[in-house]
């Protein structure tokens, strides 16, 4: 209606609206959600492929023992613990509390570092490699997919933390911090079914 000109136009004044918005009111939140849905379906299909291959096999896991539980279970525990500092700085971000967010993010970065290290041990102790059987291939694919997300989000956190120690602290940063937290939750939540499939499914489906 660029061309309309009336003596007195009715106007919708949006100047009172906030410019720092969280959750469903923030565009970034929806974008992140979209990415999670995409990656979530990738994970889902990879797990489906795992069970499809199982349905085609006579013995499961073929020719190897199920993977030993220690490192995987340890990592799951650390994953769950890491939720605590994350949730803490996520809530503080809502209030624009810079110091708390700085501390919380550093904590979660340290958690991430530990998890990546333990994950490395996990890979060393897996019961197969990817070239021997289709079972090995799918296990490594699923692990690989999750590691990619793990590292991506970790690097992400590092960069964001750096920003929080730079002169770039502003409303958008806190929104980013909240997104970063929710993405970390995504990494944690997707790990749980993966943990069950990698470590427990071979025991339950043992034949």
């Amino acid at each position, binding site marked *: 209606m660029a061309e309309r000109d009336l003596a007195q136009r009715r106007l919708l004044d949006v100047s*009172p609206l*906030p*410019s720092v918005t*969280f959750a469903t009111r923030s565009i970034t939140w929806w974008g992140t959600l*979209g990415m999670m849905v995409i990656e979530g379906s990738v994970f889902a*299909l990879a797990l489906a492929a795992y069970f499809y*291959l199982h349905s085609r096999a006579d013995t499961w896991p073929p020719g190897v023992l199920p993977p030993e539980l220690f490192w995987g279970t340890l990592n799951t525990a650390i994953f769950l613990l890491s939720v605590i500092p994350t949730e803490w700085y996520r809530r503080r971000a809502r209030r624009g509390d810079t110091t708390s967010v700085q501390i919380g993010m550093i904590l979660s970065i340290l958690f991430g570092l530990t998890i990546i290290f333990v994950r490395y041990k996990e890979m060393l102790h897996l019961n197969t490699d990817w070239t021997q059987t289709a079972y*090995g291939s799918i296990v490594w694919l699923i692990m690989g997919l999750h590691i990619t997300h793990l590292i991506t989000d970790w690097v992400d956190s590092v960069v964001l933390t750096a920003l929080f120690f730079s002169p770039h602290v502003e409303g958008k940063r806190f929104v980013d911090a909240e997104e970063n937290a929710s993405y970390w939750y995504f990494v944690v939540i997707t790990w749980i079914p993966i943990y069950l499939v990698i470590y427990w499914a071979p025991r339950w489906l043992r034949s």
Partner: protein
Amino acid sequence: MSDQRAQLVLETEPAESAEIRAERLARVWTEPSGFLGWFRAVHHTTIGKRYIVTAFIFFLAAGLLAGAMRLQLAFPEAHIMGPDLYNQIFTMHGSVMMFLFAVPMMFEGLSVYLVPLMVGTRNIAFPRLNAYSYYLYVFGGVTLFAFFFVNSGPDRGWFAYVPLSGPDYAPGKRADIWAQLITFTEVSALAVAVEIVVTAFKLRAPGMSLNRIPIFVWGQVVTAFMVIFAMPGVVIASTMLLLDRTASTQFYNPAVGGDVLLYQHLFWWFGHPEVYIIFLPGTAIVSTIVATFSRRHVFGYLALVLSLIATGFIAFGLWVHHMFATGIPQMSESFFTAASMMIAIPAGTQIFCWIATVATGKIVLKSPMLWVLGFFFVFIIGGMTGIFVASVPVDLQVHDTYFVVAHFHYVLIGGAVFPLFGALAYWFPKITGRMLSETLGVWSFWLFAIGFNITFFPMHILGLRGMPRRVYTYPAGAGWTVLNQIESCGYILLFLGVLLFLLNVWHSLQRGAVAPANPWGAGGLEWATSSPPVPYNFLDLPTVNGREALWDAAPDQPVVVGLHEDTREILTTRLLDAEPEGRDEFPAPSIWPFVAAVVTTILFIGSIFRPVAVSIGAIPLAIALIGWFWPTRRESARRRERDVWQKET
């Protein structure tokens, strides 16, 4: 949060003259100029135009490849080209049409250009991601053709079934290049899908509640959701293929527990919805054009939207009907037959609604409407032959014969390309500011329509005469020669039709009549701004009062004020009722998306030859992405002092 709501006010006297504001907005929103500027552009109209032009070029290229096939098939046991070249050509034709033309044009191109205009906002959500996805798409396509010209074109069909495309039976790098092309295009499609969903959900003009969203936008949103859920299937399938070939994994190796049908399940989980990803934008176009040229609101808005959504759901329930011949249990056969038949119901519903619109409106036969009418006749035939392939026993006969080739060219060209030409004729004035010539338009339509039917109708008969697909030649005695020659002649008309369309475009760009803002007297918001749109889309962000914004606008329909106009600020609204709920500042032009795309391309291509390229390439990619998201001091400072925090509720 009561004090954080937008309120209606009466304008006493204009704060500033429109000229000053327009000038300021232009300064903020105009795309950077110069050679480097070209690579920094982030506005959806710029990127959208590039998508459309690029996709059309790929359409022409794939069309020429089809010509080469028609030439070879015009004679039995022809030696014009050998099987090696023919297999590359038919694979390129299929892959390019599907991955570099159909989806990028029908979904990415049209939606990126039109959706933000139609919902009345200043730019698409995540503009830099949008630019990145475009460059990735171009690089993917260029790479594919580059390899094709050095005799490394994929030659395993656009579906690349294992084990034929696997490490043991596809030596060389051809199949890897196919798999990476998929990666390129799927990344860009997924990115655009997210942008479109968010744009349509959060950036709509105030008043454009869910039940007032233009059907075109609905169509593109449903398509976006299908992309989001379907593409992961081919992501996994092609990744596994690539790993099998380069990292010697065993996903598809029957000798050690792998399975060749796993690939087909994953591929068709994507591949069937893919057909609707291409077709739904087509129906969205039809609904729009039918309404405008029947001079009435489209009949059965709710029914149309619901059938779009229903199609989106059912589409995921029939991937196996591409695998009826693989010996799957009869039980699931029946299920997928039922699903395949069921999807005819929403399709039928849409057709009936359009016919109802036509039959109760005042029809103006301009060339866009001609293309849409052509769509009806062609697509209905394609839909009917779809029932043949949905029925298991009949499919066992016609599957992988020329009958199927005829069927999907009727649905895809009928369901996508006819509406596409309609769309190009319809929105050309908006995009370029020039009118196309009606005469040339009508001529190109008839050439195309007649040529199309001459080329593809005989294929039904060939299929029922037992001619299989994907053969580079056929015996002289089989009784297939005459029909093949008729088809090859039809191709020439088809070709001339497209040529005439191009001539029309070129001619009107030179000396076409200048287009007014709303040449068709249409009702969509995109017609509310000038043709071509100003860099900031709308001087005053509009509000909406009905499904056809311009037709239903109240005489004193309010406009939005109060956004900062010295930055790229846009208005965000609530998902359901499009109530204003926030202001957000959009990123400025940047070179980083382009840099990131270049790095990604090197990474993808490198990984074909040395898997380690993935881990090495990740580092520069990370750097590029950091540069992408790193704000400038000035921005941060400015925003910091303007920040208005959302009140906790």
